């Protein structure tokens, strides 16, 4: 009996693992692939579901105003990308390849915008450069006036640069952190100038990250809704068009066509990113030596200026938004009060709703992501199944938030749909958030799991320990820091995102980020700024708490690992 049990147990292991992978793959199918196909169908059919080919697109391209928006979107995105990637490269270079001090400070400042909803930058810009802005009026007459045409492309680009800069910086700093110093030594021996080395060694060495960063910034701007909504003025872009078509005119078919247009650069970016990820990993070898930073006063001086300037702008923007939210009646009564925050902490209010959504997203999302990443990475389940599951897990990377929200409306707001029931509840928002931020979490989790020795699984299998016990007793504790990181990622993004859920939120469960858009819509700039401030504060508090816990755990696992080595 006993031997018989022993013999089937590994099978039971595999069977249960396969079952979970299959069910999760089906879940992903329903959450991503089917809604996406709905979009494609909607884009080529009329309101009664008859196939009409590319009529909507023909319609689109024969409406001058709409073509103009497409062109506007491309222009704004291109300019933003150029500025953001250049600044991001400079900043990353300063932190990775120069000897300036206070790198930790600059790094945390550079990442600050990630904690704020993208509308915040626009709101702060109104307080600075609007017709009654601090800088426009020269601090209310103290200095000469300085006016720019904020509402329009200038405002959008400024807000988008702030929004995309941290992404560019993050991607490029990872690339710049790893370099093979032997290349630089060789170049120097050959007598190349610093400038030449930069162009022939540094840039090619980071070229894949550079491509990715360029595309990511372009797509982020191309599909962002927050900034053009706040400071776009009469300058129409694709993302606001989509909102107007779908929400304003309830024209779902045309909305689908615009959605497909938004998808194109995102898909290109996705493919390029996948290729560059694969190529990048082959860059370093075991013989590589790490980059050595030489002394250079001039270089460091210049980078101090750059980093301090960028940091000052970022901190300034956030402080101005906070200041604006506290001023009683801008610009006529500058006394400070919390009047604009009134009622925001109510149990039923948008802020509490957002906290609930963010916690639920983070909790459910982290568990699901971990389980799936684990099974794909560590299990011995069916290979084909694992590969298709992996592919599906990457797919959300190619879906901009606006498109994701749109396809969820199409898919779930259909009374004949068995899953129709979750439409209009908090669950569809949570599901949408999980899917929206799933790929990055999945990748983080996978790379975290890769670092663990697969001997654990092999050993436990040979001892007939069920896989879930190994998972709970060994793998989970060892990967806790990664798990917390993923939790944080889900939480923060759920707090700040607006693009997807603007189509989905239920009437009585309005998230804070959507409330910001509504407040701004009806002209309550200060209240919108107040809500943005609350979001930043909440995000920073949660981050601090999670990092603190993570630090404690890290120390414990470190000692554990050392002990096992002895």
């Amino acid at each position: 009996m006993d031997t018989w049990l022993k013999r089937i147990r590994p099978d039971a292991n595999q069977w249960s693992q396969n079952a979970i992978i299959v069910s999760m793959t089906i879940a992903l199918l329903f959450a991503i692939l089917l809604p996406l196909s709905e979009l494609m169908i909607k884009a080529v059919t009329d309101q009664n579901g008859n196939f009409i080919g590319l009529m909507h697109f023909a319609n689109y391209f024969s409406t001058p105003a709409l073509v103009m928006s497409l062109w506007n979107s491309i222009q704004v995105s291109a300019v933003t990308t150029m500025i953001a990637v250049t600044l991001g490269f400079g900043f990353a270079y300063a932190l990775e390849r120069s000897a300036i001090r206070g790198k930790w400070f600059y790094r945390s400042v550079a990442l600050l915008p990630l904690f704020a909803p993208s509308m915040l930058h626009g709101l702060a810009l109104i307080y600075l450069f609007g017709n009654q802005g601090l800088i426009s009026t020269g601090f209310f007459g103290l200095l000469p006036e300085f006016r720019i045409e904020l509402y329009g492309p200038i405002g959008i680009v400024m807000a988008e640069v702030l929004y995309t800069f941290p992404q560019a910086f993050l991607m490029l700093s990872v690339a710049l952190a790893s370099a093979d110093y032997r290349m630089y030594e060789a170049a120097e021996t050959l007598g190349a100038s610093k400038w030449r080395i930069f162009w022939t060694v540094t840039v090619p060495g980071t070229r894949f990250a550079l491509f990715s960063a360029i595309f990511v910034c372009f797509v982020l701007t191309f599909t962002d809704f927050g900034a053009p909504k706040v400071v776009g003025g009469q300058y129409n872009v694709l993302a606001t068009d989509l909102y107007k078509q779908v929400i304003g005119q309830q024209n779902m078919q045309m909305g689908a066509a615009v959605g497909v247009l938004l998808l194109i650069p995102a898909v290109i970016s996705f493919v390029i990113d996948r290729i560059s990820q694969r190529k990048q990993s082959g860059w370093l070898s075991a013989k590589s030596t790490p980059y050595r930073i030489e002394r250079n006063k001039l270089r460091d001086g210049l980078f101090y200026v750059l980093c301090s300037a960028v940091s000052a702008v970022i901190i300034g923007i956030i402080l101005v938004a906070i200041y604006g939210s506290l001023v009683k009646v801008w610009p006529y009564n500058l006394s400070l009060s919390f009047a604009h925050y009134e009622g925001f902490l109510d149990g039923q209010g948008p802020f509490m709703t957002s906290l609930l959504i963010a916690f639920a997203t983070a909790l459910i999302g982290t568990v699901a992501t971990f389980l799936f990443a684990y099974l794909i990475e560590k299990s011995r389940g069916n290979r084909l199944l694992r590969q298709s599951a992996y592919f599906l897990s990457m797919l959300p990377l190619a879906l901009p938030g606006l498109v994701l929200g749109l396809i969820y409306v199409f898919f779930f707001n259909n009374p004949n749909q068995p899953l129709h029931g979750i439409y209009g509840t908090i669950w569809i928002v949570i599901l949408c958030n999980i899917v929206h931020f799933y790929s990055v979490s999945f990748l983080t989790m996978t790379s975290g799991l890769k670092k663990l020795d697969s001997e654990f699984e092999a050993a436990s299998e040979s001892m007939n320990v069920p896989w879930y016990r190994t998972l709970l007793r060994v793998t989970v504790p060892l990967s806790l820091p990664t798990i917390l990181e993923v939790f944080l990622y889900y939480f923060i993004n759920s707090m700040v995102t607006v693009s997807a859920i603007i189509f989905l939120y239920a009437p009585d469960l309005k998230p804070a980020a959507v409330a910001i858009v509504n407040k701004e819509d009806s002209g309550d700039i200060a209240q919108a700024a107040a809500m943005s401030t609350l979001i930043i504060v909440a995000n920073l508090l949660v981050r601090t708490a999670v990092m603190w816990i993570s630090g404690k755990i890290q120390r414990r696992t470190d000692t554990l690992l050392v002990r096992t080595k002895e």
Partner: protein
Amino acid sequence: MKIKWNVMAATLVVTSLLAGCGAPKTEGTASSSSQTGSEAAAVSNASGEINVYTAIEDEQIKTYLTSFKEQYPDIKVNIVRDSTGIMTAKLIAEKDNPQADVIWGLAATSLLVMDDRKMLESYAPKGVDRVLPEFKDKANPPKWVGMDIWETAIIVNKAEMEKRNLPIPQSYEDLVKPEYKGLIAMPHPASSGTGYLTVNALHQLYGKDKAWAYMDKLHENIMVYTHSGSKPAKMASSGEAPIGISYGYSGIHEQKKGAPVEVVFPKEGSGWDMEASALVKKKDIKPEAKLFLDWAISDEPMKEYNKNYAILSIKQEGSQIPEGYKQDPVSQLTKLDLYQAARDREGILAEWEQKYGSKAEPKK
């Protein structure tokens, strides 16, 4: 998740407390409402859930609903709010699968459009006889019943006008003067009811051709077309756009908050529309929806509407004209045909969009 448990626990405690002292509580509310009330508006134990679509301003909804919640504590009211144009588009889009049970406080011109499409169900709410005849549908029982009227107002920032040495515009004709170039914010008529009522008033006031000629000139002076009808008033209040074409209440609200604005009702007469309510035609019409419509024209909410709007659909004895309004607000209104306005709506909006909506380039 922890929060939710706390809330749930708290709700449980509160409910059981309320249940414990249910009897005296009912009595108390009943006596207080019988003082004010027409019909006996005791706390009802009707329960259920209704979806109410509305274009009433966010900050007004909460105060309005207080008396409904007191009377019907067990009816859950889900409010879906957006600007008039969006609510209209949403309701029309959901025509075959209506989500709303009640439409509350939407522009009468929009309700007329929906009536045209057979989307409304006749219902005579309790006390409908008290509603003045021009404030409800001519059919009996009526398809829609009005609550109040709101009207065009020009909100002008005095401080900014002084700074620029400009007089305060008093009329539509003043607004197209070249000195106001780039200073005016106006709501987009396709999304905002206030925007449409003003554009419609110009049409009925001047006639089609002159109205478009006027708006061509006005367009030259516009800084931005906003999504909501109250935003121009708020932009005027902060001086972001010193002149806002908006509606009376929104400007007066800003005044009360201490902004240096003047609320001007244009000399030629204000455009206007009516906030009205209706029952949505659908398979299962909930009795709670009818209760809501009964309540919507009862005394308690009427008193609240009166705090924001000078003209009500039910004659108020000794009702006060809100501060900031002229003595007789009715005389401020132009003569309008709402039925004509509803018929013209689609055509005017399409032409407007074509003429001014495609101004995609930023102004130089």
